[in-house]
């Protein structure tokens, strides 16, 4: 079973990397990019029948730091 886990910074958490990327896009001449937020994607191949709870625990215990990050799980 293939999973894609998307981890993004919470609203209100400053993202200096996103800001730098935004400025670099502006430097390349792309106008009108109002905001950029950088995140991470994890592609997992897990055993069939892995419970939603186990997947949620993987996110909470390791893949995301819930102090600063949100996560969502997408099933392929």
């Amino acid at each position, binding site marked *: 079973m293939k999973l894609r886990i998307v981890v993004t910074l919470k609203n*209100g*958490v*400053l993202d*200096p*990397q996103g800001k*730098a990327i935004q400025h670099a896009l502006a430097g390349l001449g792309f106008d009108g990019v109002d905001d950029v937020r950088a995140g991470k994607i994890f592609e997992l191949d897990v055993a069939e029948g892995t419970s939603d709870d186990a997947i949620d625990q993987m996110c909470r*215990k*390791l*893949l995301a*730091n819930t*102090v*600063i990050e949100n996560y969502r799980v997408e099933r392929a």
Partner: protein
Amino acid sequence: MKTAVIVFPGSNCDRDIAVALEQVTGVKPAMVWHGETELPQGLGLIALPGGFSYGDYLRCGAIAARSPVVRAVVEAAERGVPVLGICNGFQVLTETGLLPGALMRNEGLDFVCRDVPLTVDNSQSIFTSAYQAGEEILIPVAHHDGNYFADPETLDRIEGEGRVAFRYGANVNGSARSIAGVLNKAGNVLGMMPHPERRIEAAHGGDDGRRLFEGLLEAVA
């Protein structure tokens, strides 16, 4: 006082802290590898050193925080054993949940490596008893991810509980409320981005960092 230094793959300040601890306590610390599951008995301090544990993969300190030895460190901390995390060690402590908040990429995106003035906010803890409250000291920093973040309620709570040990006297990394070092609620765990172990003798340009270890030795021994 018996001490231990935890060594992860990628730690690079483990020797610095070991030298500082040996100079102040007169006893060589036990160097404990990340794969160990038990710590030596009777420790007066467990130190988590600076560096780039596990190559800073995933998030700084994230993998180290889930290593076997850190489970033992968390148990020891919960029993009241003093734990000091410096730089990457601070990042590890926030990742374990022993300390609140998180350390994010520096606001200016630069790796910052220089001496910075710190203000001692709380001089009542076992780690800061040799300083005066409000005293300014000079301690080096060397980090890329030292931008302390916590939500406003958490910041209000830790400030209200006197858990800010040190604040930056200059904005080096964008940290919330200039927080440079944080204590846990019980006061036996301190995490700080600056490196007191790099300023313990005249040859380092000063010894403001030495008093942290001397004060701890007096408080614990």
